């Protein structure tokens, strides 16, 4: 469903971060991206929904090149929602409003097409938000502000905020890296549930155990290119290139 062709990204025309990445992400696939820091793996993820504009190459989303600036990228960002390392929950909104904000806004904007009234949209979105909150066990925090939540709770809310838009793909940018160790588990548990539900996921992560367990395919990115990719078994048990062997010896 996503085809990446020779993707390049450089900052200020000088620093080349991505030097030609080509890959295909299939429907329902779970991809884990690993690699040393500064290798370009986060940049690659951020290029997928054009939060960082690619400077070369194509990203075909169901055939449409979303790297083209003329494309309505906001429409595609709703299909590819993102979860950040720093959560990026809206500090001025309650947990419930954080989740409801985008579905409400676009639901009301498109209400002519769907033939729903403003009130219907609101009721539907609210019900959905509550059911999502219940799934992660935070229904009692609906009216809390992000500043009143723990890191793990924030990230779980951020995940269902992304999920509330009914995305087709979810991008995770090191979702557990900013968390205290004891909170990593609760976030990974939510992500595992999500994976089991069949969601297409692209996850930049340092959690090797999680990558091995959940991913269908692992990409090892270093120096701006995909150095090696394969199933978890191939990558972890039988690494080919020296850089990957070196990397694994440091993190495992």
């Amino acid at each position: 469903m996503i085809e990446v062709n020779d993707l390049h990204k450089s900052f200020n025309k000088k620093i080349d971060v991505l030097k030609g990445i080509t890959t295909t992400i299939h429907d329902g696939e779970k991809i884990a991206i690993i690699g040393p820091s500064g290798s370009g793996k986060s940049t690659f993820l951020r290029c997928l929904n054009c939060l960082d504009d690619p400077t070369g190459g194509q990203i075909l989303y169901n055939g449409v090149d979303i790297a083209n600036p003329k494309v309505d990228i906001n429409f595609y960002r709703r299909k590819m929602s993102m979860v950040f390392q720093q959560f990026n929950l809206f500090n001025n909104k309650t947990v419930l409003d954080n989740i409801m904000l985008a579905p409400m806004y676009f639901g009301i904007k498109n209400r002519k097409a769907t033939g729903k009234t403003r009130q219907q949209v609101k009721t539907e979105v609210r019900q959905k938000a509550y059911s999502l909150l219940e799934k992660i066990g935070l229904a009692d925090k609906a009216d809390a502000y992000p500043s009143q939540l723990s890191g793990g709770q924030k990230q779980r809310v951020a995940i269902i905020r992304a999920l509330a838009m009914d995305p087709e793909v979810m991008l995770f940018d090191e979702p557990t890296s900013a968390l205290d160790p004891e909170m990593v588990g609760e976030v990974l548990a939510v992500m595992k549930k999500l994976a089991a539900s069949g969601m297409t996921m692209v996850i930049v992560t340092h959690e090797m155990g999680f990558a091995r367990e959940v991913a269908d395919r692992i990409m090892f990115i270093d120096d701006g290119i995909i150095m090696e990719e394969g199933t978890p078994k191939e990558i972890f048990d039988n690494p080919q290139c020296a850089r990957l062997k070196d990397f694994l010896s440091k993190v495992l």
Partner: protein
Amino acid sequence: MTFVIQGEKMGNFGLRYQVFKEELIDNHGYEKVLEGLKNTILIAVVGLIIGIVIGIIIASIEVMPKYRILPKILNRLCHVYVAFFRGTPLVVQLLVGYYVLRPMMGLTINALDSCMLIYGLNSGAYVSEIMRGGINSVDPGQMEGGRAIGFKYSTTMFKIIIPQAVKNILPTLGNEFIALIKDTSIVSFVGALDLYVAFKYIGTNNYEFMVPYLAMALVYIVLVLFITLLIKLMERSLKKSDRSK
């Protein structure tokens, strides 16, 4: 009697006070003072309102992403504007505005209106910086979060960034208002009547300036303390909404 003797020691303060009181109350000097006070507040309030309008325009141009040529040109213009109004003394702006630009542009506005306009233009330069700082102090992750859920730049700005920036901006705007109040004390350069002119008028009748100017200082400090109190109350209510909700 003792009052007068004590007064002699302090430069005849008691006697001078009597003269001042006579001028202020019996000779209707208070009417001038009240008018001066009204003008001082009017210039500061209208100036701040104009300043906020200009500040919003400049700040939004400055924080806009600059891929296209038009925002770049506008941004340059804003820089020139801010550089001019922050780089020259207010007195100079007042004199140039009133004695140079006003006749050159054929405007027939009176001194008081000119002052409001010029103070507004001046304040706009400072307010724009306050607002730009307030917006930039919001975590860039908030913008990313907004863009990632498919909001346009402007939607994210209005729904997410600006509500958070306002909390940083409001207290500083209060300080700008205090600065404006104090800066009004030079509008006599172009012949507008403010607190300074009013008290000078009272003093001039008898060439007794000691008490009038002391009284002027007191009026200013009371005015500023009062505004400070208002700002404090406002800040507290902002913090409250932070906690309780």
